[in-house]
Every structure is written in C-alpha cells, then in structure tokens.
C-alpha cells in the first residue's frame, strides 16, 4: 500500500510574514482513498489546500503528485496534472450559466484552437459539441441539468455547493480536494452530500481529500484522518483512533463527541 501513493507531502511549510501558517506537514495519499483533514479554525487546512493546488508556493518542503514535483507550478498547471478543488467560500463564475461553469472546467480537455473557433472551422463545432455533451453528463450526476441555463448566482446555496463539485470534477482530476463541502448545509443535506461523494469516488476512480468541521460527515465517510493544529500535524489515523485521541479532543473536538457515526 505504501508504494502506490498518488500524493506525497514531504515536510511542507509556509510562512506569511512572521506567521508560520503550516510547518513540517507530512501526508501521503493512496490511490482511491477518501481522507479527511480536520483541525481548529486557522489551523492551516485551507492553506495546505492552497499549497497543494499551487495558489501558494511552500517556503519549505516538497509536494510530489504521481511522481512529479508540483510545488512551484502555477495553479492551472497543477489542475492539468490532475488535482482539482472546491473552495471554502464558494467561487462560482456567478454571471455565467450553470452549463458554462462546467464547460470552463472542461476547457483543458478540449483541443480545438482559437483560430478554428474564430474561423468557425469544423473542428470548432466538433470540439464544442463534445464539450457540451460531456458537461451535461456531469450536471446530470449532480442533478443540476434542469438548471443548466440558469445563471450560477441564481442557484440556491445547496445547489451552488454541488455545482462547485461538479465543476471540479469536469476538470478531470485524479485527486479531488473539497474544502468544507457541507458548510452551511443542514444535517439532511449533509447526509445527501455524503452519499454523493461516495458515488463519485467510485464512478471516477478518484482519490479525495476533504476538509470539514461536520464530524458526522468526516467520521462517517473518511477512511483516514489527518489533524492539524497551529500549522502542525498533531494526529493521523482512522476515525476511531482520532475520536479517542486526547490531543485531538483537547484541541478540536471537545468533550461532546457526536455519539453516532
């Protein structure tokens, strides 16, 4: 199991001015795993995602994805290598239609050139047609095809969250990073989201890393969990181990651990 890792985070750290937001972070993800990343607010979870996706360049350490070093690459190149993400604060293309949001993500898989589009050559029509069909497929999975001509900003919040995931999938990732996908959802919606995540993992053969504060969700679907506190890894293990880890209880969970998983 240890040699089929898809992502290896080796002693990574970053500082903002004097603040060490993350330091000495180690993590390994294996093909097909579903892993959780938890920790108190400001622990450096989102910052870690930002380093994994090229938004920030780590000031130390290495990030190896499928044998290739990805730290230092700009975000769009990282995405093209196969890491895509959602955002903690939703970042849709709000004035564009739901369909176009997904098409944008499918962009790098299409081949027709700018010239062919400007001259309306046959390759343009073929390429656009394929994009449209593929994008609608993604929307169908998330049950968003009914809203495909709606502007993204007009969707209700829950659908916007789902669209973000659909869009991230359309970018063709092997590793999907979800930043608090259930934030602002009520327990019922969260439960639906859980099954959806499990479904897409199977269907697209994905490895998933997710940040979440909803312990029902994290403990419910993650196979392994990493816990960050003050930018440092304080624990790693199965949900059961994490739930009972005194350090995690002190820093993060508090006494009232949800009873049901």
């Amino acid at each position: 199991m240890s040699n089929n890792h898809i992502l290896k985070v080796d002693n990574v750290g970053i500082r903002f001015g004097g603040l060490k937001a993350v330091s000495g972070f180690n993590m390994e993800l294996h093909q097909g795993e579903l892993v959780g990343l938890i920790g108190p607010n400001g622990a450096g979870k989102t910052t870690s995602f930002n380093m994994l996706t090229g938004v920030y360049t780590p000031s130390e350490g290495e990030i190896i994805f499928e044998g290739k070093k990805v730290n230092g690459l700009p975000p769009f190149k990282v995405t093209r290598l196969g890491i895509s993400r959602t955002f903690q604060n939703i970042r849709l293309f709000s004035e564009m239609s739901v369909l176009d949001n997904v098409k944008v993500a499918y962009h790098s898989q299409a081949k027709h050139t700018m010239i062919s589009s400007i001259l309306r050559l046959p390759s343009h029509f073929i390429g656009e047609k394929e994009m449209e069909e593929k994008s609608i497929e993604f929307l169908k999975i998330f049950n968003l095809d009914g809203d495909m001509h709606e502007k993204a900003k007009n969707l209700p919040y829950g659908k916007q969250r789902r669209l973000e995931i659909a869009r991230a999938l359309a970018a063709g990732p092997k590793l999907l990073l979800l930043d608090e996908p259930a934030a602002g959802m009520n327990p019922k919606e969260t439960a639906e989201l859980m099954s959806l995540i499990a479904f897409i993992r199977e269907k697209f053969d994905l490895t998933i890393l997710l940040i979440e504060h909803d312990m029902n969700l994290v403990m419910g679907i993650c196979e392994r969990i990493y816990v960050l506190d003050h930018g440092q890894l304080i624990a790693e293990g199965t949900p059961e181990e994490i739930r009972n880890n005194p350090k995690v209880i002190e820093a993060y969970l508090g006494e009232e651990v949800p009873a049901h998983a």
Partner: protein
Amino acid sequence: MLSVKDIDVYYGNIHALKGLSLDVNEGEIVTLIGANGAGKTTLLKTLSGLLKPKNGTIHYMNESIVGKQAQTIVKAGISHVPEGRRVFATMSVEENLELGAYSRKDKNGIEKDMAKVYETFPRLHERRKQLSGTLSGGEQQMLAMGRAIMAKPKLLLLDEPSMGLAPLMVQTIFRIVEEINKEGTTILLVEQNANMALSVANRAYVIETGRVTLSGTAKELQASDDIKMAYLGGHV
C-alpha cells in the same frame, strides 16, 4: 418584547418572506431553524432595519419599528450579529469593539462593557491590538458577538454563529450564548445546527421558503419525528 405579524419581504421580484409572523418574549432564547434559503437571514435583516418589509407590522417593546433606520433600531436595543461574522478586517479588535458602541454616549458604561467583553472572551483581550482580518474563524465569531454586546442590546440577533467553526469552538460559542442570555439579554438565534440550537433554546420556529411551518418549545420540536427527519440528520 418582539412581535412580528404577517410580513412580506422582497428582493426585487423574489418573494423571500411570505406573511411570516413570530413572537419573542423577554428573557427567552428563541431559535429559528430551516433549510438554506428559507429566509432566516432575510428575517433578521428586516428586524435590524437593513431591509424593509412590504406589508405587515413589527413591534418591539410595543413600538412599531417598521421603516426605521438601522441606526435608530440599534439605539433602541436590537443588535445583530450578521451571517459570516463580517468583522472590519483592517481594523484592530479594539477598534471593532469601539464601533460596536458607536451609538452610545456614556463613556464610563462603554469602558465597563468593554471590560466585560474581554472577561467573557479572554482571547480577544489577548489579541486586542491585532487586525481582526487575521483572526481565526472562531475568534472572529467571538469578536462579532463581543461587538454586538458593546451596543448594550436588549435583544440580540445571532445569524448562524456556529457556521464554519470547529466543534470545540461551537461548544464555546453556545456556552457563551447561554451566559449572555442568563445576564438578561433576549436572544433570537438562527441556526443550521439544529441539534445545538434546540438544546440551548426555550422555543423554536421552523421556517420553510419564507413561511413559519412549525413552532413550539424546543423540547417538543426536538422530539418531533418530522424535525428529526428534516433537520437533525435523519436518524429517527
């Protein structure tokens, strides 16, 4: 203390609140639960004067506050902690708290309340010179609540104080909510985290697409199967 009758609120053509009514009595914690987009935030914004209802009445301490400016309502004792915290990021913690007391003139009272806030939230005292934009989510939530307390409210409107917070922090926040209430502030609490909300509240309303569909004491609702299905995670 607060009585809302049949209000309709619109965003352009969107009819967000449809003839909604509810009451809050002095000293209570009342919680509103409901799905995304049900209209909870809209209601709070209407109460604090950020939005104007098209029809209906809102009485606070037996006086109509419909059409009053936000600053007048704040002076009258209603203080609103907005969704998403909304601290003034490039101002220090202390300045944020001072702004909370913006409409007050009693210098001594302000100082006293400031001390009280720091007592309730020692973390804020520790960080009082830090720019609030660099605080962690939980700290920002504390600041937002502290800022509202600085207005010396009789009625505190809280919009999803647990959103995006770590479990430990959620517990802290709810503990503080109960403390504030014990010290005499009435609280109207909007929450997605219905479990938590119902466990601290006296009464609750359920809102769906702009209407109240259910109300009762927190105990009753916690026991209701419908509520369990819809809002407590489906574990009947």
